[in-house]
């Protein structure tokens, strides 16, 4: 139920839309706002001024280039698409009730939409040696530093007389983890060398936070994407890596399913050889496993050993599925292109920050 306090808290925001809430419900990071004028979804976010204007530009641009499967933003009565209140940014969307009948089709719709956006915004960039060099060095250094941290954790664990169950589990998979790390680095180096040789690099508008939670179905059953707060111009592999890495953690997910979803994506944007290599590189790097180790080191008192071990084992299982998926896509020829592409002006950068499970 809405309290008077909530009405007062969100009143200054909803005032911009001439809405008076009858009821406000919390649904994750979104507020469901029930008013006499209908039901709305109010999202609260932290964005800088530049991020706000980029975010609204992305939403408008997608509509301009013909991609309409985005949850629309309602403008305020003053014509803005976001409301800034103190350090917080808010935006209002229609409320779509979740439809469980469509849950099974979610991944297909998500990948299909992603493919469409990438195809519509695909742009061959003017080759910049400086940018590619910087991106490569940045990522390689980051990966090597992480690898060094993990090797140090391993050495410290090995010196203990009695290892914890977590350390024991980690050590029993250590060589396999390091093999995947080396494979990721090798693939990244190959990508860099191919870019240097071919002097080409493609960028697209990446959603930036691809997740099943960011696809919802409207009352007519049409899937709509939302949460473009982290949208960025980057290699299409950025979105694909985030998606497949998350997907591999689902219990039922299989490399075969992943392969057929990638085929679906490639009907819109067939990947270049070096892009396929970059995808394998991103996916092979065992960042989720390293993150589980970080969590163990920093918050071991917050969780039980069994919880920590389960988390690690689940990530190692996902890593194995990822390895099989990588083997499958390495061999496959790309399917034929089915749709023409359009492009928008872009800037080039590769960024591996965040979004690792």
């Amino acid at each position, binding site marked *: 139920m809405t309290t008077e306090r909530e009405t007062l808290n969100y*009143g200054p925001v909803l*005032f911009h839309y001439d809405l008076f809430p009858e009821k406000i419900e919390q649904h994750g990071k979104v507020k469901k706002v029930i008013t006499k004028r209908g039901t709305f979804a109010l999202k609260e976010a932290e964005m800088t001024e530049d991020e706000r204007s980029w975010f609204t530009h992305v939403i408008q641009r997608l509509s301009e280039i013909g991609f309409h499967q985005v949850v629309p933003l309602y*403008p305020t009565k003053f014509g803005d698409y976001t409301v800034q209140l103190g350090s917080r940014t808010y935006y209002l969307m229609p409320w779509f009730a979740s439809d469980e009948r469509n849950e099974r089709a979610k991944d297909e719709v998500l990948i299909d939409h992603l493919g469409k956006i990438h195809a519509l915004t695909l742009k061959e960039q003017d080759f910049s040696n400086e940018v590619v060099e910087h991106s490569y060095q940045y990522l390689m250094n980051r990966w090597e530093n992480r690898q060094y941290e993990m090797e140090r954790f391993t050495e410290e664990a090995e010196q203990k007389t009695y290892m914890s169950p977590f350390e024991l589990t980690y050590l029993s998979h250590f060589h396999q983890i390091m093999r995947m790390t080396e494979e990721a680095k090798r693939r990244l180096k190959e990508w860099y060398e191919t870019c240097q040789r071919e002097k080409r690099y493609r960028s697209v508008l990446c959603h930036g936070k691809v997740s099943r939670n960011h696809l919802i179905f409207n009352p007519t059953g049409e899937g709509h994407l939302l949460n473009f707060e982290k949208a960025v111009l980057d290699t299409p592999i950025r979105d694909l890596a985030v998606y497949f890495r998350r997907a591999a953690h689902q219990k039922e997910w299989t490399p075969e399913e992943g392969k057929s979803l990638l085929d679906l994506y490639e009907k819109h944007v067939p990947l270049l050889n070096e892009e396929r290599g970059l995808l394998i590189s991103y996916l092979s790097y065992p960042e989720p496993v390293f993150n589980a180790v970080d969590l163990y080191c920093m918050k071991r008192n917050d969780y039980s050993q069994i919880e920590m071990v389960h988390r690690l084992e689940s990530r190692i299982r996902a890593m194995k599925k990822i390895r099989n998926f990588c083997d499958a896509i390495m061999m496959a020829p790309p399917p034929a292109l089915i749709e023409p592409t359009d492009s928008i002006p872009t800037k080039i950068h590769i960024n591996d920050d965040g979004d690792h499970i």
Partner: protein
Amino acid sequence: MELINTLEKEYELYGIRWKERPHLIMTDYGEKRIRYWSEKENLHWHIRWRDESSKGSGAVPDRMIRTKSGEPAIKYGNKWLTVHDHAEEWYGCEDVERWGQFIGTLLNTAMSSDKQDVFVKQTRHPVFDLKSCITLAEKYLEANFQCMVTSIKESKQRLDFSHAIKNKLRNHALPVLDKELSVKNGRKIFHFLFYQGGESLPIKGYLPLRKFLVEWLEQTSPSSLKLLLTEVNKHFSLDREQGLLLLAEVVTPWELYDCLDQLDNSSLERMIDGLKKYEDCWESNRILVKTVTEWFDEKRRKVAL
């Protein structure tokens, strides 16, 4: 009815009816105010300050509600027409922090006006005219009324001080502010500060803020005024040149005009009464000068410590 029909056609507003012709209407989304503008440049200036000062500020100015096609105003006859929110409940002066943040944001916006803009360049910069005041007070000065002699003498001293600061900082830009900056324009909606701006031609310099500070002092106390300046200073620095320019405007004896307005020599009784009012008006305004100069002195001492 013609205007109502136009509004229903142009705006996403429903159930429009007059509440108070020709300025207030009721709609299904609440009460709205209509403003009429005869000068396009003035309208653009008012759209800009309202839009800009709403960014990040805890207060909401009465921005122009956009039309269905996203325009901030519509042409109506030979004028332009804008629609705004309207609220009756007064916000009061208790929330010093919120007011300080709003005034600070407003000053930042006022300083960022396009200096090359012809309209901004031509904005009026009011100048205090002591000579005309002395002419008005001539008979009283000849009669050697003590309060008149003292106030004119002090006015000269204050004006000299103000000129000295302004001359020293003459190369520094001045804010361009809404002429009708007033505590009374602060209204309450959902417990937040909703500020109803004016329509007049803007003013260059700190005179509108001086008037606001006078009003604040009338409504509150010297300590509250100091607190307000401290809050403003958090969002718009008064530590350097702009602070001195504000001080220069505060010490300028603008209140002399109001004091002279109190005089009435139509009868002896009225003349005595007028002189009493003159003295009261002068004394109460001295508190403003004293409080603001004290605030600047205290701040300087804190920095020195």
